């Protein structure tokens, strides 16, 4: 094996790819997307060790050499970072020039003749290496990096045989102690060669700037924060520094414990909607570490603390591995065989249907499951249950996105790739907190802002993007919770009344009549920023400034999250966002667009797969006869033309006594859905609740059957991220339970008398492609070859569709819709004077079932209630106190954090820990169009606990 090809089989080209002018904005450290057409670029032809190479002008000699198959020794360079030129190992000779320039920092020029090997170069390199080794411990055989250490490799490459300065095997930082404070990696400064890669990775790639070099000269050393432990520093544990460290200084603790991997498998993170590609490094069926995949298009070699490190839950002792049943929810569980569990479930479901009718049962599928699993659950419900009672947790997060974008643009999905942000000039982030919720995307976004793009944040709370190292929002519209539509309509008012519309775009690409109606609506004085200032709390001048900035941007992009959708006007706000993008011509090319940041890994996919009571896969309404016939022919059943029940309707029907059986795959409504009391009462009223999950979750307390689930490491399938990117999930270990989830659904279907025949999830994907035009070109062979594909992928777009609505909208003409601001019914009163809004933190994931079962709890061990100093003082609350939080539906207690991040009158909490019961207080208000719950606004009172 070539010494420059790491154990994993990835080549390190030394410096980032230089992207030719006019093709792709070259973000710092940005890796080019292959397949981008190279147009009109300036190239240089040069000769390296006698081999002729053609590279884009500006490419480093090191990279040019690597492309020619010649590897130049290096220590401080790696291709995920800009060249730094500090180690002097990569020296080369250039004909006709004096000296020995560093190849990593010297740009290739046409006609150069470069030599990478000569007796003199060899001597110089050996001298450099000698100095390094004279100050490095020589315990290679017992070092955790043994076999995968670049220092070791380079010593071999330069032929180091002797060290004249002595080989005492010590480093001059003799006083150094290993910093083990981070739960996942350790920092042993005794092995550090001060190559600065870690510092640069934290800056360029992650954008946190947690590391520095303290001191100077011989005293230079890597320091976290103010020379403190990693845990106390600003480090967010993304692992980027660990990836690039060429030595064992920064090393995953799992590698220290287990040793280096012997094989690896490419798969996809199962946490958030960024959908990072990972290389699972394995010893047999044991995961040694998860390393972000350089060729993963969503993440390009970066990751966050969840995907990178928090995978240990898969083998947590809390995992249930045997099916269990019980007659009553008050009975103890009884372990049974798979056959018995499935037979029992089938007979219960059939009994309920016989007595209460076909529509008395249904299924819910989690957005954490694979596309194939989601598809099978809706097929089970439609074909075997014989109704349309299937829904997904996307209902509680992004259903307004599906509705709003379909109505306006014609497709229920985001319009861009993540990489598109590298071409944005103005970026609007609304109701999202990417640095916590979508960290790897946040790193890209921050990089673009550091390059000069402007940022507008619309959020009730001061999220990190408002003001953090090297990032400052041009505008922060700190609105009152529940007033997104007011602010967005006011921005539209400014754009129209100040003549900032993109008239040509609108005339060419949007419906005239709808636009005229909208225009007439937004220009009304009631929609001016001044008129809406009272409602939103945002000064009119700020709204005007933000609207102008966005409208005048060459490329304006909007990114939004659950802070937009989880409102009584969630769909209206999504529509208002689409209106803004159309009005300013910001759709249909790179750098612009409307981009929902999906919460869970497969929110997009589970929606695509028809996990909705009214839609078959591909967003086709069940009332559409042609679509129904297509599926009926393939499945050999009759599909009901009437939409089935949504989750809230199922729960209501349960309380009425007309809905009594539920199949719940990977979902935990008792914790994740609003108004817990109502949810649990409904579950308790059912006769057969079947829960399929990794752990006994909150809903399992109300279950009669528990079917153990399989983690993403135990199954094959695909996830679709927020950029419509379909990526493979690959099995790296056998299911602990003996069956992957898709096999369980198949077996249940068989027990119900409707047999499905799939030998492998690839066959499920083949069926999806056969029946869904946007997926027609998707299959596993193609996914394996391409790495990932963005739908629509079919004959019109065989390689997939990175940017949507190019040239024309999917629905033909874009449709503006009127967005009348209607205040939520959830109003503050004397009794409930504060508005509670919710969010999440970086280290925990949703209801926390997985992350709580990992060391991520060290970063955030309990939900906190954030409250403004004024509101705290008024109530006599001190930082850290436990307080009571009461809404009109329930109450709970939480520890308090006093901070000016929130505005007076607003309190904020996360919902990661079941004991906090955040959803005990959230109400069952919901979006008018889609029933998406209004998690983001609840009127509450906060009070000091007596005796506290």
């Amino acid at each position, binding site marked *: 094996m070539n010494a420059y090809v790491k154990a994993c089989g990835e080549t390190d080209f030394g410096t980032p790819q230089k992207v030719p002018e006019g093709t792709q904005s070259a973000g710092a450290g940005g890796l080019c997307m292959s397949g981008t057409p190279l147009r009109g670029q300036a190239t240089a032809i040069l000769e390296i060790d006698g081999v002729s190479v053609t590279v884009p002008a500006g490419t480093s000699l090191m990279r040019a050499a690597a492309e020619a198959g010649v590897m130049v020794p290096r220590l401080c360079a790696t291709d995920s970072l800009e060249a730094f030129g500090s180690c002097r190992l990569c020296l080369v000779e250039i004909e006709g020039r004096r000296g020995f320039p560093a190849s990593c920092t010297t740009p290739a020029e046409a006609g150069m003749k470069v030599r990478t090997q000569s007796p003199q170069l060899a001597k110089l390199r050996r001298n450099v290496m000698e100095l390094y080794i004279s100050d490095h411990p020589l315990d290679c055989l017992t070092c955790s990096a043994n076999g995968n250490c670049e220092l070791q490799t380079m010593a071999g490459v330069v032929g180091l045989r002797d060290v004249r300065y002595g080989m005492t095997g010590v480093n001059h930082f003799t006083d150094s102690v290993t910093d083990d404070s981070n739960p996942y990696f350790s920092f042993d400064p005794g092995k550090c060669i001060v190559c600065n890669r870690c510092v640069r990775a934290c800056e360029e790639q992650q954008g946190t*700037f947690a*590391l520095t070099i303290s*001191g100077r000269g011989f005293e230079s050393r890597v320091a976290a924060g103010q020379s403190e432990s990693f845990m106390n520093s600003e480090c967010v544990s993304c692992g980027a520094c660990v990836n690039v460290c060429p030595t064992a200084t920064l090393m995953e603790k799992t590698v220290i414990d287990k040793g280096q991997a012997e094989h690896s498998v490419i798969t996809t993170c199962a946490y958030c909607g960024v959908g990072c590609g990972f290389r699972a490094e394995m010893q047999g069926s044991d995961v040694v570490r998860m390393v972000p995949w350089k060729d993963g298009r969503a993440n390009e070699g970066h990751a966050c603390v969840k995907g990178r490190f928090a995978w240990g839950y898969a083998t947590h002792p809390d995992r249930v591995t045997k099916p269990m049943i019980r007659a009553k929810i008050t009975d103890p569980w009884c372990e049974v065989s798979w056959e018995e569990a499935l037979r029992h479930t089938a007979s219960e479901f059939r009994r309920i249907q016989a007595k209460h009718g076909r529509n008395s049962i249904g299924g819910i599928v989690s957005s954490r499951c694979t596309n194939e699993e989601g598809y099978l659950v809706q097929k089970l419900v439609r074909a075997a249950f014989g109704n349309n009672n299937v829904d997904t947790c996307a209902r509680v997060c992004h259903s307004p996105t599906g509705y709003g974008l379909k109505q306006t643009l014609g497709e229920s999905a985001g319009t861009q790739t993540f990489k598109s942000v590298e071409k944005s000039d103005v970026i609007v982030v609304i109701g999202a907190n990417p640095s916590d919720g979508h960290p790897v995307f946040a790193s890209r976004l921050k990089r673009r802002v550091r390059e000069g793009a402007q940022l507008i944040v619309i959020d009730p709370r001061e999220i990190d993007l408002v003001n953090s*190292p090297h990032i400052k929002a041009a505008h922060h519209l700190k609105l009152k919770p529940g007033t997104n539509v007011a602010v967005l309509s006011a921005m539209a008012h400014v754009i129209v009344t100040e003549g900032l519309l993109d008239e040509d775009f609108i005339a060419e690409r949007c419906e005239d009549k709808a636009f005229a109606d909208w225009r007439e609506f937004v220009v009304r004085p009631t929609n001016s920023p001044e008129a809406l200032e009272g409602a939103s709390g945002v000064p009119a001048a700020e709204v005007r400034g933000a609207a102008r900035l966005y409208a005048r941007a060459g490329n304006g992009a909007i990114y939004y999250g659950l802070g937009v959708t989880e409102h009584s006007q969630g769909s209206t706000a999504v529509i208002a966002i689409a209106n803004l993008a159309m009005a300013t011509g910001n759709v249909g090319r790179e750098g612009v667009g409307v981009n929902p940041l999906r919460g869970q890994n497969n929110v997009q996919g589970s929606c695509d797969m028809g996990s909705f009571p009214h839609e078959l896969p591909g967003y086709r309404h069940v009332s559409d006869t042609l679509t129904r016939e297509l599926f009926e022919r393939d499945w050999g059943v009759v599909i009901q033309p009437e939409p089935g029940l949504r989750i809230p309707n199922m729960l209501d029907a349960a309380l009425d006594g007309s809905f009594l059986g539920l199949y719940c795959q990977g979902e935990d409504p008792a914790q994740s859905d609003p108004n817990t009391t109502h949810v649990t009462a409904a579950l308790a009223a059912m006769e057969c609740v079947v829960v399929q999950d990794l752990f006994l979750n909150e809903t399992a307390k109300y279950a009669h059957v528990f079917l153990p689930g399989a983690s993403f490491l135990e199954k094959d399938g695909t996830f679709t991220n927020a950029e419509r990117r379909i990526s493979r999930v690959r099995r790296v270990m056998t299911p602990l339970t003996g069956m992957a989830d898709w096999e369980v659904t198949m077996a249940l279907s068989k027990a119900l008398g409707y047999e499905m025949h799939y030998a492998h999830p690839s066959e499920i994907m083949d069926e999806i492609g056969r029946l869904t035009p946007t997926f027609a070109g998707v299959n596993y062979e193609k996914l394996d070859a391409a790495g990932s594909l963005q739908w629509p992928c079919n004959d019109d777009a065989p390689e997939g569709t990175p940017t949507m609505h190019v040239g024309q909208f999917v629905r033909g003409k874009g449709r503006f819709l009127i967005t009348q601001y209607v205040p939520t019914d959830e109003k503050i009163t004397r009794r409930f004077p504060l508005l509670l809004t919710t969010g999440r933190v970086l280290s925990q994931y949703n209801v926390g079932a997985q992350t709580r079962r990992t060391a991520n709890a060290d970063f955030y061990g309990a939900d906190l209630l954030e409250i403004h100093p004024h509101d705290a003082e008024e109530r006599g609350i001190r930082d850290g106190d436990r307080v009571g939080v009461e809404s009109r539906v329930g109450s709970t207690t939480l520890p308090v954090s006093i901070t000016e991040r929130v505005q007076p009158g607003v309190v904020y909490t996360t919902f990661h820990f079941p004991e906090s019961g955040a959803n005990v207080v959230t109400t069952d208000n919901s979006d008018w169009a889609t029933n998406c719950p209004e998690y983001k606004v609840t009127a509450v009172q906060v009070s000091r606990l007596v005796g506290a």
Partner: protein
Amino acid sequence: MENLPAIERTIEAIVAAKQSLPGALLPILHEIQDGLGYIPSESVPRIAKALNLSRAEVHGVITYYQHFRQIPPGRHVLRVCCAEACQAVGGEALAEHARLRLQGSDLTLEPVYCLGLCACGPALQIDETTLHARVTPQKFDALVDALEVDP
């Protein structure tokens, strides 16, 4: 620590006055050190926040420059030149002598790199106010004795 609020006020005022200067970090650090004699670690988060920097970056700059102190100085600061010309005429020996002589003393010893007295080293500076040339260990001791009795 009893006058921490006063220190905080000073830092606050300096940061507020200077934060919008281009390249404000060094002027802020200098002014804090001039005002307080050192740069308290508690000031770092405040400076970082005001300048959109990380704490680590500010810390990196403070530790890079010999000039900046992270702990309060003693009653007087003695800087022994450790640059080449002085080294050639016994500067290193003087520095070592000074280190031993000042152990446990309330005077602060710092290295400095060239005081502009290269022709007549080893050179020593006291409190950025007085310069001394051709400093022998005996001369050094005499200077220190004087400082120690001097209140």
